[in-house]
Each structure stands twice: as structure tokens, then as C-alpha cells.
């Protein structure tokens, strides 16, 4: 009964299938695959499960023995919501959660808006320098964002525009950093759209602006959703830009969480609750939009 990935599996169309259990779709059931995948899934889940369980344990319990004890002996453990209450009240995580949303929504939508027009031009218009400009996009995708910190802190800081610390600074930065990838992804998708539709609209006298809004933008929606999912997770989970360009009143969950990680000893029980709060929204987005997310990744997402 033990079949491994290495032994030759009988071909589906084999006239005399060997004695082994088949799955609904007629393929042989591979016990080796099933057992190894279950093991892998357990290994992959355990660390997160540990965090989740610990976040609901009282401080004393969490420090006296491992989180698995709470699972084996659920009635001997002091379960509590206190960590969540405290981290929201004391560490200001509720406010930070709100900040995260305020930062992430515009920083997700704005780059799509600008990138869509550029992608349209790259796909449906001909102009001198087109190839060169698009190669520039491919190139800047790889540039590490660290290059931007000192110059941008000077430009947006008190000696420049004086908007460093405000949401607007972070919106601008994420819009700029997300732009190459957005243009690249959208252009790749748009080049799969039927050119004839655009052509016939043009013959009917439609302007490019009309063609963009009425035809191309709606058709490119899947690609836009794919990029939006990617960008949302990226902005929400970002530490560097939020840490450097937001003042403490505006800072995001991730920055607060990093602060909690720095405090050893007391406050450890808040850390687990805080970490879980920081993961809730991206996980919801992830599960709801997994299809788009996968499409975004498969469309060749390389980001500097």
C-alpha cells in the first residue's frame, strides 16, 4: 500500500489498474504524499498556533510552561482576554490599527490609478522611446528602497515640505515605490486584451481618454485587483517606511509591534496579543482575495 513519489504511478488509462485505492478523479492515492503533506502543514502551522494560544493565556501561565500544555490540559490553564484588552488600552494598538487602515487604503488605490494610464500608453499607443522607457520600469523595480530614505527625509522633513510624520508622506512614498510594479503588472495584463476592441473604438471616433475609462479599465479589473491585494499586504506589513515617516500618533500596528518586541521581560504577554492583532486584517484580505493574490504573484512580481 505504501507508494512513494519515486515509484512509478500507474497511468490513469492503464487497462489493468493495480490493486490500489483511487481518488474520485481516478488518480491513484499516494499515501507518501498525504503523510508528508500533513507533516509539513503541521510544521508550518505550529509556530502560529503557539502564538495564538499564548495570546489567550494569563501572564503567569504563559511564563510557567509551554503553550502546548494549555492545549493538552485546557482546564488547568488560566484563559484570558486580558492581554488583548491591555494591548489595545495600554499600547494604543486600537488607534494604531486604525492608522494602518488609513495608511493602507490610499496607498493601495492611488498607484493603481496612475499606473493604469501609463500601462495603457505602453500597451495601446506607439511613441518614440517606448521600449526604452519600459525597460527603465523593469530596471527600477530592482532598486532597493533604502536609497530613498535620506533624500526623502530631507525633502519631506522640516527643512523641506514639512509633511514627514503625516499620512500624506507615507501615501506618497508607497505610491512611488509601488509604481514600477503596478505599471509592469497592468501592462502585462493589458497586452493580453484584444487589440481589435480598442482599434474599432478609435475608428468610431472615441478619444483615448474615453477608451481607457469605458473599455480598458473595466477589462483590466482582475489585474488591478491582483496588484491591489499585493500592495495592500505590502503596505500593511511594512515596517521601515511607517517607522521613519510617521510620527508616533500616526504610527501603524507593525511599528507598535516592533516597539513591543524591543521590551524584554514585562509586556511579553502583550506582544503575542499585539502580534495576532497585526495579523488579523492581512489574513482576512488574504483568504478573501487569495485568487487575485496568486494571480498578482504569478504575473511576475519582483519588487525592490
Amino acid at each position: 500500500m505504501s507508494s512513494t513519489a519515486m515509484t512509478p504511478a500507474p497511468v490513469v488509462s492503464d487497462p489493468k489498474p493495480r490493486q490500489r485505492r483511487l481518488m474520485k478523479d481516478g488518480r491513484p492515492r499516494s499515501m507518501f504524499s498525504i503523510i508528508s503533506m500533513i507533516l509539513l502543514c503541521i510544521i508550518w502551522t505550529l509556530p502560529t498556533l503557539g502564538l495564538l494560544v499564548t495570546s489567550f493565556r494569563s501572564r503567569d501561565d504563559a511564563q510557567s510552561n509551554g503553550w502546548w500544555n494549555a492545549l493538552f490540559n485546557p482546564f488547568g490553564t488560566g484563559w484570558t482576554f486580558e492581554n488583548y484588552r491591555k494591548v489595545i488600552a495600554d499600547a494604543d494598538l486600537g488607534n494604531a490599527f486604525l492608522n494602518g487602515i488609513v495608511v493602507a487604503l490610499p496607498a493601495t488605490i492611488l498607484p493603481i490609478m496612475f499606473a493604469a494610464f501609463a500601462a495603457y500608453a505602453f500597451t495601446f499607443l506607439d511613441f518614440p522611446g517606448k521600449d526604452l522607457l519600459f525597460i527603465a520600469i523593469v530596471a527600477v523595480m530592482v532598486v532597493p528602497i533604502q536609497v530613498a530614505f535620506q533624500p526623502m527625509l530631507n525633502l519631506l522633513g522640516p527643512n523641506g515640505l514639512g509633511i514627514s510624520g503625516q499620512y500624506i508622506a507615507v501615501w506618497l512614498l508607497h505610491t512611488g515605490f509601488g509604481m514600477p510594479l503596478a505599471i509592469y503588472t497592468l501592462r502585462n495584463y493589458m497586452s493580453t486584451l484584444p487589440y481589435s476592441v480598442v482599434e474599432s473604438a478609435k475608428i468610431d471616433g472615441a478619444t483615448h481618454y474615453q477608451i481607457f475609462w469605458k473599455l480598458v479599465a473595466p477589462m483590466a479589473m482582475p489585474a488591478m485587483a491582483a496588484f491591489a491585494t499585493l500592495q495592500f499586504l505590502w503596505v500593511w506589513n511594512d515596517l521601515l517606511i511607517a517607522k521613519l515617516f510617521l510620527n508616533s500618533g500616526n504610527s501603524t500596528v507593525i511599528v507598535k509591534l516592533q516597539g513591543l518586541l524591543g521590551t524584554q521581560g514585562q509586556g511579553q504577554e502583550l506582544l503575542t496579543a499585539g502580534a495576532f492583532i497585526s495579523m488579523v486584517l492581512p489574513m482576512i484580505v488574504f483568504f478573501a482575495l487569495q485568487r487575485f493574490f496568486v494571480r498578482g504573484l504569478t504575473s511576475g512580481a519582483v519588487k525592490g
Partner: protein
Amino acid sequence: MSTATDTVVAPQRRDPDDINRANVPKIVIGLFGLILTAWALGNLFLAFGYYPQWFLDNKILIAALALIGGVGGAALLFWFLNMFIEGLPNRLSQGIMPYAFLLPGFGLIALMLIYPTIQTINYSFANANSTEYVGLANYKDIFGSKDFWNAILNNLLWLALVPAITVAIGIIVAVLADKLSAQGEKVSKSIIFLPMAISFVGASAIWNLVYAYSDKSQSQVGLLNAIVTKLGMDPKTWLQISDGKLNSLLMMVILIWLQVGFSMILLSSAIKGVPDDTLEAARIDGASELQIFFKVIIPQIRGTIVTVFITVVILVMKVFDIVYVLTNGRDNSDVIANLFFNEMFANSQAGRASAIVVVLLIAVLPILWYQVKTFREEQMNR
């Protein structure tokens, strides 16, 4: 191509004299609208920063207005820009239109990526607060410092291990999942993929718990130490052990744990895209499953393997959050991006920090060149 059709078709539909003449009202309204919109938008966005009290200090209101202002404003901007260009004589307008569509996107790229790159290179030749040029002093400093070479060494170690292991586990998981039932495949893939949604900081918090250390006399809270003590050994402060680069290796585990999902998803769709008849043919020739895997499947998914590998390489080169949060470079675990951060913000050495980024920038150049080369080849084959 498109311009050719325009010049052929358009004159039949419109009065030929009309389109080659400038439409002055359109130009004026377009230009005026452009300036007005840009001015209003600029002021609105600055007001969010300068006078939050105008918006009752309400974050949600500000975000909503930013979204409406940003998206609507951008649409309005393009609308006026379009009107302005349409007002121009036809030949001129056809030529300018594409650049007008590119302008906002490229403007942002120029401001946020190209200008800073040049400025950073510039700062790397200047002193700690960028007020005076110091020639190559910063480069001499960093190349003469032990910490810098240690960070480079660590980065190289990360580069040597993380991308390759991520790809390898990704392939294994993709192949195994492919052999499960449809339902099983979906669920197991989701589980492996899930860490992609978790931030580096969140992942560090999760694994901090795995690597946690309690005194020998106490019951171990960390999973790893619990296993080790069960095996009869003493608990260890894992992230402080630099022998054999153990602390770096343990942090690499976190990044691999995060990235395998991405690698698996891409490779899985590539493996599913391998045509069945090539596999069938190999089987008929008597190839074993292992031979089929290495000689038939792997060559056909090489492109995807390279894509995944490069994506992880770029990520690893600037790995920061995990190291910053867990060790901050202590016990010989520093990496380039963390060294940069500490030079810049803890030590206020903008010059040296910029020099470190320039080194990073030079290190990504081969990848940049490769990306451009692959892109051009793809374009030729289209």
C-alpha cells in the same frame, strides 16, 4: 501602427481643416483646469498634514477624503490634460498624448526612486550630515570596518542558502500537493501559503516564541528548547549563539517559512502547465518517476524557477526587519540593510550609511541587468 490608422481613418470622419487647427477654447479650459486641479489637490493634501483640525482630527474622514481626492483628482487631472492635448493641432496632439499618459506615473518614479538614487550616491561622498564633501572617506571607512565585512559575509550566507532552499522546498511541496485530492491540495496549499500574509515583524514575534529560553531549572516555554531538553540537553539562548552562524541560520528559517508559499504557488502552476504528453512519452520509454521529474519536468519549469529564485534573492539582499527586531546585529548576525539603518539613525552617519546603500545598489546591478536582458528576449519572442 495606431497612428497610421488614425491618419487614414480620421479624416474621413471629421473635417480635415478642423482637426489640424488648434482648438483654442479647449486648450485654455484644459490648461486652466489642469492648473486649478493640481493647485487644489496639492493644497488639500498638504492641509491633511498641516491642519488636521480642519478635518476634526478625524482619521477616517481624512482617509476617505484622501481616497476621493486622490482618485477623483487624478481622474480630473487626466481629463483636463486630455482636453488640453485634444485642443492642440492633430499631429501635435497625437505625438504628445502618450507622454501625457505616462507623465504622472513617471513623475512619481523620478521623484521617489531616481532622484533619491542620484542623491544617495551624492551623499555617499559627503560627511555625516551631508554638508561637506569628503571624497572617498566614507568608502574607506566602511571597507576598513570589521562590522561591514561581517555583514557582507552574513548577507552572502543568506544569499547562498535562503533562495535555494526556498525554491527546493517550494518544488517539493508543489509536487506533493499535486498528488493529493483536489480538496486536500487546496487546503494544504492555503496552509503553506498563509505566512505570506504575515509581516516580517509578526513572523519574528511568532518565532521569538519558538526560540524562547527559560532557565534550566524552569519548564521551557520555547518549542525548540522544550524539544532539546526532552532529548536530555541543556536549553540554549538560540539567537545569541554565533558559533557556526547558528543565530543567522535560525533567522533564515523564518524567512524561508514566510517565502515557501510564494515559491510553491508559482512552481505549482508551472508544474501543472507541463504538457501531459511529454510525461506520457517518458513513461512509455520506461523512465522512472525520479528521472521524469529531473529530466522532463525540471527543464520545462526552469523559467519559473529562475523567477522565484531572483525574487527571493532581491528580498534577501535587503533583509532587514527580522534581523533588526530579533538581534539588531548582535552576536555577529548583522546584515547590510540593518547596518545601514543603524549607521543612519543610531549613529547619525548619513555619509557612511549612503555609502553602504551604494554598495547594495552595485550588488543588485547584475540582477537588474539580467532582468532587462530576459525582458528584451521575451519581447523578441512575442
